[in-house]
């Protein structure tokens, strides 16, 4: 199981983005969940772990919450929770239909 260890400042997009900022239809990979409190643990239990792939499916008509897809299921999160998940964009070439936690170590092609 390979993990993404790259925290270098040379990657402008990877470090600064959180899950709530990702637009609909994009897929991202989880870098980490900010904090070590019960909410962070719960997000962890829900499959939001380092290396997990998450797709942004759609937002509610009123703009919040958002449906995400990960680990083969769909999960609604509000901004208050999804903003705690730091993510890095996935290479666009990858098949967005596939899901699962099996992380791909590829770092090339980060937009």
């Amino acid at each position, binding site marked *: *199981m390979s993990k993404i260890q790259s925290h270098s400042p040379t990657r402008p997009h990877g470090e600064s983005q959180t899950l709530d900022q990702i637009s609909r239809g994009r897929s991202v990979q989880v870098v980490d969940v900010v904090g070590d409190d*019960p*909410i962070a*643990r*719960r*997000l*962890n*239990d*829900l*499959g939001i*772990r*380092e*290396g997990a792939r998450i797709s942004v*499916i*759609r937002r*509610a*008509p*009123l*703009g*919040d*919450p958002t*449906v995400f*897809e*990960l*680990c*083969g*299921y*769909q*999960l*609604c*999160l*509000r901004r*208050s*929770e999804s903003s705690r998940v730091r993510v890095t964009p996935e290479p666009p070439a990858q098949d967005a*239909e*596939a*899901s*699962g*936690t*099996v*992380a791909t170590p590829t770092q090339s092609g980060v937009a």
Partner: protein
Amino acid sequence: MTSAVADPRSADPFVFGLLGSPNAGKTTLFNALTGLRARVGNYPGVTVERREAELALDDSRCVLIDLPGTYGLDPISADEAVVRDVLAGRTEGVASPDALIVVVDACSLPRTLPFVGEAIRLGKPMCVVLTMLDELAARRGNLDLARLEASLGVPVVGVVGHRGRGLDALRRLLGDPQSWSRPAILPPEDRADRAGWADSIATSVIEEHPTRHRLTERIDRVVLHPLWGSLLFAFVMVGFFQLIFTWANPAMDAIDQGIAALVTLARDSLPAGWATDLLADGLIAGVGSVVIFLPQIVILFSLLYLLEDLGYMARAAFVIDRLMGRIGLEGRSFVALLSSYACAVPGIMATRTIPSPRDRLVTILVAPLMTCSARLPVYALLISAFVPERNVWGPIGLQGLVLLGLYVGGAVAALVVAAIFKKTLIRSDGLPFVMELPTYRWPTAKVWASQVFGSAWAFLRRAGTIILAASILLWVMLNFPKVDVPAHLEGPAASAYALEHSAAGRLGHAIEPAIAPLGFDWKIGVGLIASLAAREILVATLAQVYATGSEEGEPLREALRRDADPETGEKVFSPATVGALLVFFVFALQCTSTLAIMRRETNSWRWPAFAFGYLLVLAYTASFLTHRLVSTFAGNDWLS
């Protein structure tokens, strides 16, 4: 302990605990294994439902406990601590499970594996039941079950709970928990290491990841569309509310007439006397006051479970969540509050779909503020008697506006009170809002029917008995002690005299000083006491007090308009008093059925007592202010 399986005569039955995430199919499996013989209660100190049932295996009797759904064993709230405490044997009156059945949704295995690892570390005999294998196949996913069993070191069985597939194999496995394999090495204790352990297992056993559910994707494109989704939400919610109202009405009328016919039959065939009165007006009418709710409850739960099992409920909650989030609740509270427009009893029962026990409690506490159908006869009487029939703007009449104002007032009060409770008394338990969107699936008729039947039965058995007892008590108060009616009084005047001297009548007089600031006299006081049985009884009681002998039409309205204080000559029903009375009914929890169902759903008298108290204070205060305001600004002249 484990010898109980081998020895069926043993006093302590062997206890299996059913553990798993919400939506993993835990409850379906529980029902499939036990056939709905569940004893339902609460865990001590929290509003978390506790379900257990006997599990009949071939040669032994066991108990199956359905533990609350959880995503992990590391609790993040007091309510979630229930699972950990039961597993550790720290919960009084609940046997610690001797073995665990961990239910896992096959489609989201990578998510659940760390949880399985946590469960294995508890050291109890354990097996894993994989559910939703039919959905996994439909989504062209594939798992190697044998390899999963080998990697975990515990038995793994696949089932399709609602079709009953795989249950025989599971029953055979449950018959002999001593033979269950145990892992040679426990999964890692550290969270991150355990995630790595889970990922390596997932990589080796998942041969094909499930694709997205095509049909669900297509339906959601419409159902969750910003415009169509919102329109559909409005349509479903209005339809839901309308059906509870309109479909239930014929059945409720039929029950009403049936009960009236039974009362007449009892009066005609039995000798006159108080025993007959008790049977006819106390017992039969009391049973009627319970059964009258059944049509609404059956229709509500038929629709609720249908929408839930189809997968729409989660979508509806998703669409409305932002608005409910503003007051500290979440989307799933909306449905319960909307149902309460028809009646708070089914509305409170509908809060079962809210996973957070605190949100559920707050929703239960404010549900009585939604304007239920029982308030309508009261509003109709007072508005038609005292609000002038004139148009204020085009075809819009004043009477209709007042009625609308009362409806809106109740809803606004419910939302404001909910927001206050969530900020003060019943703060959030720190649980983040998380909700899974299940794939759409057809509910199986059998499962659906048994859920509806189970809810209706639970209502009859648990709340019905309290409602019946309260109706009889109120009947006694309205009819005893018996007094000698003066000879010159007869007909309605005689029954008015008897009522004034009954326990309720005396109580009405006794509370008069307390309600005088609201502009209410003892007659309204009797009406308020009687309307504790059900709000609409105010109308019948006022008819009796005013000795009009008729509940409808001119006589009662006229009598109310004419009634004046014998000393001052002032009208009893001044605009201020009418306003105060209407406002009182917006807030007050004048309904023993609601109190009974609150008692049943929260498993304590504490919350119904609290709700009754806070709503009484609210009603009194608002009513007092209304009386003052109207007295000051409107004067007494708008009736003449």
